[in-house]
Structure formats: C-alpha cells, structure tokens
C-alpha cells in the first residue's frame, strides 16, 4: 500500500472518477434520444401510450442526468489538479474542443432540461417537444466533441509543437477529424443507444413477466428489441472497423488485445489465455486457427505484429486489455443472441409470450454498461504508457503531486461516489421496479406526484392563496 506512487494514485483517481462518470452519459445519451422519439410519436399518432412511457422514463432520466452533471464537473477540473503538465501542453489543442462542448452541448442540455422536466404545463406540446429535442441534440453534440478530444489523444494530427513544448493547433479540421475520431464516435453513440435499449428492454420484460397485457410494458419491450436486433449487428461492424483503424495507428494496442508477443502470419484468434508481460508469453491459450488474421487483415494469412516488435517501455498492460476486450465482445455476442431471439419470436407473433425471452432480457439489462466500461478500459489502458499517443508519456503529464493529497482525495471520491451515486442507482432501480401504469395522462401525472412529493401540495396551495 505504502509503495504506491503519487502518480499511480493520480491514475487511479482518474480511472475511478471517469469510469463512474461514463455510466451516466452512456445511459442519458440513449435515453434522451428515446424520449425524443417517444414524444415525437405521441405528437404524430396521438396515442397516449407514448406519453405514458415518456413520463415514466423522464423521471428516471432526471435522476441519472443529475448524477452525470455533477460527476462531469469533476472531470473538467481534474485535468488541472492532477495532470497540470498535460493541461499546459495539450490545452491549446484540446481546450477549445472542450470549450465547444460546453457551449454547444452542456448549455443546450441544461437550458432546456428545466423546460423538459418541469415545463409540461407551462409551454405548449410542440415547444415542449422542441425542448426534448434540444436535450437529445445536446447529448449527441457533447459526445461529438469529447470523442474528438479523446481520439486526438489516441491519434494526434493537425498540430505542431512550440518552443514551450506546447501542442499548437495547425489545421483545426485535422485536429477534430483525426484518423480515429469517426470510428470512435459512431462506436460510442451506438454503444450508448444499445446500453439504453437493453435497460428499457429489461424494464419492459420485467413488467411483462408480471402482466403481459400491460400496453406500456409491451411498447418498451418491443421498441427495445427492435434496437437490439437491428443495432447490435451494426455495432459489430462499427467495432470491427474501429479495430482495423486501431491496427493501422496503434498496432501495439492490437498486439496486446490479441495476446500476440511475436509477429505471426496467419494469426489465430485467441479465445482464452493469460498474457504475461514478464516472460513475454501467452499462457494456457485456447485458439481458433487463422481467424485473427482473417478479422484484422481480411486475408487468410495476413501478418500481425507482436508486442516484441515494440520497445518494452511502450507496452500497455496486456493482461488488463486482453481481458477487458474479451468481456466487451462477449457482451456484444450475448446482446446479439437476445436480439435475434426476439426477432424470431416477433415473426412468430409470440414476442410477448415467451417468458424465457423476457427473463433473458432482464438478465442482459446491465450488459451495455459492462460493455461500455470494458470498451473504454481497452482503449484507454491500451493507450498507455502515453497520454498523447507516441508524443507525451503519462509519467510526464502529471502535476507536482503530493501523495497525501491525491490519496486522501481519492479516498473521498470513492466514499462519496459509492454512497451518493450508489443511492442514486438504487432510486433509479426503484423507479424502474414500479409498473408503468396505464391510464389517462392526468392519472399518470397524479400518480407521479403522489409518489414523489407528499404533503407539499397543501403547502404550496397555501402559498398560492
């Protein structure tokens, strides 16, 4: 414990706070779009089912979004507290992108969130729908800019380096649309959509298991399973494309993911193994011959570089990303199976009648979160030992750190995040466990009020008088 360096503690702090944070936006990006679609369909079809489902998820969205905001503010300042050298050097390039994120996304979300959550009775339905659309657009803009920043750190282009050692933007287009950005952006937005779809599907299935005639639960389940069946295969293609892009720009990362230490032609796909950086060997491996080369080079006997082709001080933590990658892909395969299963049942017109499908959907509810976390671990830990790939080492990026401060605040973050966000997740699950009630819109609203604020209406009535 006591021989952990301040640098390691700072890395742990960043990993911890960013991992917790990503859970909330991954959910709210998808949910905001889902809400916009629901409200749009309601305006179009005038079917109250959509509005009831909208109101049901709106409350859950509010709880998750709040946690995303406050855990996000931490990220905006942590670059400076723990990674000041990185901030000084990379600020001129990544700072303006983040500035655009704040101005085009965060303000948009925050400005219209109030209207979306509390303004239903104060503005007309079309204006309210506009507010929902703006919140959804804000989440996507935010993903655009922050993915651009992250991708630039992975595949930096469009900059020069000045006398003070700062990265200076040269061609902004090349900075923003750096080589890995389009792949990452698509992969992440699809991941967010799938994460939300599987949560919505799980909640729909959970309530269908109790009452399969519940119209609201049916709508949730049906919409979610369409997403699962259609978007999961698309996501797999997007992931494959990102893999090819990574092979081109960060071959050491791919070598670690694949568990290859030596260069191989006609490389196998390793299903299982324990990579050991010390000995430079992959232990206990189970392999499918040639499939690795087929996936990554699209030829039967393409050559893949192994880690030994790179200096050892440039290797990432192979064990970690070898496994995080496999867990992510495993989640994807499970999602695909559920998606295809639902498609089969839908064509048999038994979508709501298969309790095992519903149970499976409940079980895979959290799969998207696991996949998102593991995917980010793969790409971020795989970028190590660099903060800006090939140009600035993590060890050279840190502030003049003090172990007591970093360790103490890390402990504080851990305690506060688990207590507060843990409770928040519990409240979200509690809301999801409530059946989506069927009734007129007014009944739905009064149900919500009764469940939330008791005693208050009388107080406020008194104030009104």
């Amino acid at each position, binding site marked *: 414990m006591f021989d952990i360096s301040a640098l390691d503690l700072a890395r742990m702090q960043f990993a911890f706070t960013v991992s917790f944070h990503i859970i909330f936006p991954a959910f709210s990006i998808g949910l905001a779009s889902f809400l916009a679609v629901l409200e749009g369909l309601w305006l179009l079809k005038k079917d109250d089912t959509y509005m009831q489902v909208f109101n049901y998820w709106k409350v859950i969205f509010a709880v998750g979004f709040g946690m995303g905001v406050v855990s996000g503010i931490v990220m905006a300042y942590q670059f400076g507290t723990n990674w000041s050298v990185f901030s000084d050097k990379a600020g001129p390039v990544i700072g303006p992108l983040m500035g655009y994120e704040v101005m085009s996304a965060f303000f948009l979300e925050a400005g219209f969130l109030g209207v979306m959550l509390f303004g239903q009775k*104060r503005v007309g339905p079309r204006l309210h729908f506009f507010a929902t659309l703006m919140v959804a657009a804000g989440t996507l803009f935010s993903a655009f800019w922050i993915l651009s920043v992250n991708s630039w750190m992975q595949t930096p282009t469009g900059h020069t380096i000045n006398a003070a050692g700062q990265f200076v933007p040269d061609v902004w287009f090349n900075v923003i649309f750096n080589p890995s950005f389009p792949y990452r952006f698509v992969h992440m937005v699809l991941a967010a959509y799938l994460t939300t779809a599987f949560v919505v599907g799980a909640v729909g299935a959970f309530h269908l298991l109790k009452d399969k005639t519940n119209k609201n639960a049916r709508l949730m389940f049906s919409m979610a399973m369409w997403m699962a069946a259609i978007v999961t295969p698309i996501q797999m293609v997007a992931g494959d494309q990102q893999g090819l892009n990574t092979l081109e720009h960060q071959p050491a990362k791919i070598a670690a993911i694949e568990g290859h230490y030596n260069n191989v032609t006609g490389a196998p796909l390793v299903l299982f193994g324990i990579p050991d950086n010390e000995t430079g060997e992959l232990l206990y491996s189970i392999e499918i011959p040639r499939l690795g080369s087929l996936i990554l080079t699209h030829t039967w006997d393409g050559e893949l570089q192994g880690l030994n082709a790179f200096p050892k001080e440039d290797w990432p933590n192979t064990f970690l990303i070898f496994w995080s990658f496999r867990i992510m892909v495993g989640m994807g395969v499970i999602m695909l199976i559920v998606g295809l299963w639902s498609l089969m049942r839908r064509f048999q017109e038994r979508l709501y009648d298969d309790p095992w499908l519903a149970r499976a959907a409940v079980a895979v509810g959290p799969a998207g979160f696991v996949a998102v976390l593991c995917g980010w671990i793969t790409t971020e830990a795989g970028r190590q030992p660099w903060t800006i790939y090939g140009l600035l080492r993590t060890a050279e990026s840190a502030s003049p750190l003090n172990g007591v*401060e970093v360790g103490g605040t890390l402990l504080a973050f851990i305690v506060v995040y688990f207590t507060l966000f843990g409770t928040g997740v519990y409240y979200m699950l509690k809301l999801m466990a409530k059946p989506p009630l069927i009734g007129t819109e007014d009944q739905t609203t009064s149900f919500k009020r009764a469940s939330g604020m008791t005693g208050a209406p009388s107080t406020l009535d008194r*104030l009104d008088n």
Partner: protein
Amino acid sequence: MEFDLPLIWAAIIAFAILAYVSLDGFDLGVGIMFPFMPEKSGHRDAMMNSVAPIWDGNETWLVLGGGGLLAVFPLAYAVVLPALYVPIIAMLLGLIFRGVAFEFRWRASEERRIWWDRSFAFGSLLAAFAQGICLGALIQGIEVADRSYAGGRLDWLTPFSILTGISLVVGYVLLGSTWLVMKTEGELQTFARKFAMISGILTLALIGVVSLATPFLDAEYHHRWFEGGNLIFSIIVPFLLTICAGVLFLGLKRHHDIRPFFAAHGIFLLCYIGIGISFYPRMVPPDLTIWAAAAPDKSLHFLLVGTVFLVPIILAYTIYSYWVFRGKVDESGGYH
C-alpha cells in the same frame, strides 16, 4: 485591425466567472439557508422548487470557466488548480452533495428525506466556502516557477482566505434570500426578507474588512488603489456600492419583491470589478500576466469565432428558460 486576443479572452472568462457567481450564487445561497427553515414548515419544498429548473444551467458556467481556462489560458489553469488542490476538490464534492439532492430528495422515503436536506445544505455550504477560499488564495498570489506551481501545499489556507471563504458564504446567502423574496410569498417571503436584511448588513461589513485587508497583502494592490490614475475607482466603486446598499435595504423595508435581488447582484458586480482592478493585467497574481498565460493565437481565434456566435444564443435561451418559470414559485410546474 489587430485584435488583442488574450485581452478579449480575459474579458470573456471574467464574464463567465461573473455569470457563474451571480447565478449559482443564489441557488447555493438557497441551499445554505435550508437548515434555518424548519422542516415541519413545509417551505423547504418551495425553496428547492424555486431553483430546481435552473440550477443545472447555472452550474454550467462553472464548467465554461474551467474548460475555457484550459482552452485559452492553459498555463493559468495548470498552475492554479494544483495550487488550490484541496479547496477545488472540496468544492467539487460539495457540488455533488447538493446536486444529487435535487432529485434524490423526492425519491427518498419520508424518514430518509431529511438526509437529502442535509446533503443539500452541507454541499452548498462546502462549495461556497471552498470557492471563497480559492478566491482569497488567488488574491494572495500563487507562486510559479518553470511553468509550474512552486508554492507550498497549504499556501491556500490563511486567515485571509478563511475570511474570504466566510464572506462568500454570507454573500451567497444574500443572493439566495433576495431570490426567495422575489420568488415566494407569505411566511417564506417574510423569512427570506429577514435573512436578506441580516446577510446584507454582514456582507457589507465583510466587504469592508476584506477591502481593508487586501491592500496590505501586497504592495501592488496598495499602489493600485491608493496611488496613480486608478484613484478615481477608489472613489467611484465605494460610492456605487453605497447606492446599491441603499436600494437593497429600502427595497426590503418597503417590501419590494424584485429590487433587492438586483441590488444584491449590483453589490456582487462591484466587488467583482474591484477584484478585476486589483488583478489587471495579471491573470494569476503576483507574476503571471494575461499575455504570458494565454494559449497561442490560433487556439484563441478558433474558439472565439464560436463563442461570439454561441454565447448570445446561450444567453437567449437561458433568459427564455427563466421566463418560462417566471413569477412566484408554484406547484404546477413540477412533476414531483
């Protein structure tokens, strides 16, 4: 025409921080006042509802301040944040405690709700106090060597920074209480008015103490305020402050709803201008100037193009969302 981009950006960042202090200031103030309103009164719901639709937008200015500083004054960002490590993280944790309470409070069972009231109040107080400490530490100056923070780990903790911490807490209560005077009626408004009166007197007293202490921290501040061409400000600023104080107290006494809120903001604005006069042309006292801290022109220019275009739009829909929730706080707007 050649633009002085760093100077323009210093003005924009100053505006963002002012917007943050003015806007989040009153909703933090409402949080700090929470424990003084008895739980049984039922008024806490109205207090929280009065800021629930807008707090999130208010806090976004803080992200713009931080993100903007990283973008256009990366060196200032890189020395100030390590120097203020502990108070910055305390502020962030405080903002978490209060931010989650807005939703959690309505999700908790009757018996547990009190914990979220406490979380809301504690978080607001901690965030406000930590911001005040940061302000004081910044005024005292931050030691820089070789593009890096070179001072001690506890430089931020001094009697002066504690004084500014307390001052900001009291000042935010003034903003929060005048907000409630504007947004509420009846018993709650009477309570708010009383708070505004007390915190108004205390705020002015603390402004006096801080103003007297500041010129003695640093010869440069003394020079700035008591000698040379700036002497005129040393007369105008206190004069305008007196007018704002007059409007505040008269407004409270004559039961004006709106005037005290704007008078309180006038007081904040003047203090802010005062600090600006002390700092200029430095970004981080005592040594780092606006131009030395600035990012290369290419960065400043790229972000400026968007800022000129986006900030007016942001202001427009921010005003719109305040307008949607205009008038006295009531139940009909909430979904809880």
